[in-house]
């Protein structure tokens, strides 16, 4: 069986509103990052891959199985939605047991599999803890564990690190990287740091359209020579904000150190090595997304 996901000409509508436009992607083993702003269409794409939404047209083949064959697809995917929980009165072990039964695991393999997964996500000692008593990070890890119950070929993880503290986020990324050693892991996020730390291949999606599909290296390469730094006075900053696409700022006394995207080198500016944030910004910028800078917030 082919170990890749092929998406061709995928369109998806919610009523009359189009959510995905002619999406074409080829996803292979390892971590695949799906990057985009909130509302860009990432969750719609993830849900469609998880058989939770119907496509309008186009073709999706998951490891050789057409998406229309939902029964077979469910056997080979694991899904962790953006917002989820479990029966609060169940403890971790019970919740895993229940979902393992729903995953079709036989009694003989259930115990072993649950033990291994709880160990993998570092929840063994919390086995008897009620789900309602778990922290956000623990709940996400439990979510990953349940998604792996059927030992899927494809793991679909939607915005898994949103709201986690930095330590938990790092732990989570490492866990996903480990899992991706022998699986396709699709990580959807609007947090660039998650992609940077884990993915080789990515797609950037904006307003339902894939505006970049390739490797992180190629994305960075495309941004080379277009990212600059400059130190300016605080007084100049308002005007520069209007003129430039600033990706970061650091205040040092009366001076501000800015990092920005531009087509050519400005006077007083120095070219610098682009990071994935810069490259992502550049793509959004070149796609006509002007308001993105105001949305970066603290998660960049």
């Amino acid at each position, binding site marked *: 069986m082919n170990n890749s996901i092929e998406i061709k000409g995928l369109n998806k509508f919610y009523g009359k509103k189009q959510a995905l436009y002619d999406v074409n992607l080829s996803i292979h083993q390892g971590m695949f990052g799906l990057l985009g702003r909130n509302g860009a269409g990432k969750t719609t794409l993830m849900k469609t891959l998880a*058989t939770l939404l119907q496509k309008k047209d186009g073709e999706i083949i998951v490891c050789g199985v057409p998406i229309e064959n939902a029964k077979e697809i469910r056997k080979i995917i694991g899904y962790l939605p953006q917002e989820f929980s479990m029966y609060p009165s169940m403890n971790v072990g019970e919740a895993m047991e229940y979902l393992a*039964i729903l995953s*079709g695991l036989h009694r003989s393999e259930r115990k072993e599999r649950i033990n291994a997964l709880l160990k993998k996500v570092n929840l063994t000692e919390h086995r008897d803890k009620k789900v309602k008593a778990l922290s956000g990070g623990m709940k996400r890890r439990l979510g990953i564990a349940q998604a792996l119950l059927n030992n899927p070929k494809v793991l679909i993880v939607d915005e898994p690190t949103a709201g986690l503290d930095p330590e938990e986020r790092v732990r989570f990324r490492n866990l996903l990287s480990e899992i991706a050693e022998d699986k396709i892991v699709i990580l959807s996020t609007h947090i660039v740091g998650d992609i940077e730390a884990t993915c080789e291949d990515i797609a950037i999606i904006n307003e339902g359209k894939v505006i970049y599909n390739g490797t992180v290296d190629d994305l960075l390469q495309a941004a080379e020579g277009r990212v600059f730094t400059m130190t300016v006075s605080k007084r100049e900053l308002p005007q520069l904000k209007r003129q430039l696409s600033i990706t970061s700022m650091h205040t040092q006394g009366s001076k501000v150190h800015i990092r920005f995207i531009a087509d050519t080198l400005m006077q007083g500016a120095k070219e610098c090595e682009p990071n994935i944030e810069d490259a992502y910004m550049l793509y959004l910028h070149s796609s006509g997304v002007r308001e993105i800078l105001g949305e970066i917030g603290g998660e960049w």
Partner: protein
Amino acid sequence: MLLLQEIKKIVKSIPYLIFVAAIIIGLFSQSVFRFGDDPLQEPQPGSSYGFKQEEIAEQIMPAALRDLLTEFSNNNYTTYPIGFLKHVKLSEGEQAKIAEILSEITGNNKERILQEVAGISPGGSDNYTFQIGGDAMQQDGNGGFTIGSDENQQNSSEKMTFAVRDDMDYARFKELMGQADDLLGGGSNYAVDSLIGYGTVPLTYEEAKERYDLAVTSDQVTGGYARLFSDYAGVMVLSILPVFLAVILSMKDRRAKMEALIYTKETSAAKLTFIRYLALVIAAMAPVIILSYVSNIMVWSSYSGMQLDYLAPLKYDFGWLMPSVMISTAIGMFLTELTSTPIAVVVQGFWWMLDVNLGIKTVHSGYSLFRLAPRHNVGPKSLFRTQDYLDHFPDLVQNRLLMAGIALALILLTILIYEAKRKGKFGGNAFFKKAVSGIRNRKNQSQA
């Protein structure tokens, strides 16, 4: 294994504990745990054996006439159109039609009836007297009428006398009473099916003995008690309470934000829905089976030496009560899956209230096809009326099979809805909200 997990999920929940408590309280209030206080006694010659209803024209006609006349004079008629008590007041024109009916039955002048009895014109309502019937009839102490007295009632010459005309044909009488019932909007005691209620006669020793023998042989005593338990359990608790459990369990995935996790698992919609349904029915039936035995065991010692049917509670639990649990649960699951709201509680509650109230007149023997809870509220004092039950047994079987069949059909529909929601083809309450807002928008547009 999944079945066990689902049962565990239900029985470990607080709503289930409330459900069990409500069943115990509901049944306790009907004294089902004190059946032993009321033993089945063999009739002895020379005592009273109770009464039975029979279609005796000579008894029914005067008794019904008397009631109609009384209600006509007050223009206040009692009916139960959909089971609920309703006082009907007729217009002058309608009263005139009742007067016409009374006139045909009694031979009195219609205008005089209207003037003097209904008091529509001056004359007062005391200007008449009522003669119960023929020479040999009088009212007995139980509110019924019996044949056997030689006394006549005295009529004063200046007053109108109301008695059924000697040449009144019973078929015509029923027709006239049917017309009166139509004028009242139906549901009165004058309805053709209800007229038999006016014919009450005492049981003879032989009849009472026959009833007793049937209770001992056919019901083997415990069957009668099990049936009485089922009558109370069906109408008081099991036709309504299971819907709460079904709604709560059906909404649990959504409330726990667990829908997407379950939707993407391998288990089919058919397996999951059916097992959940089965788990709900088992969880609802378990306390009932236990309580039916608790109730039944209490009378066993009173009949030592007699052949008892120790499986009778189980037979009635599955045959009589389970279809009520099945339909109530299925409505809960179906409507909750369809709308993602607890609307099923309202729907089932409405049907239950209607069924209970419609059943007021048939509490001793209610087996019609669409009854949610069949009725046979007859205890050992009335010797269980086993023959009535046996006579209606085919109706009961039809009713119970129909309810179980509808329940299974609803579960099939629930499976289809679940699968459609799972694939994002149907949005549940989102669909209904959209439909409602569409209707509102159209209404607003047309008003604008």
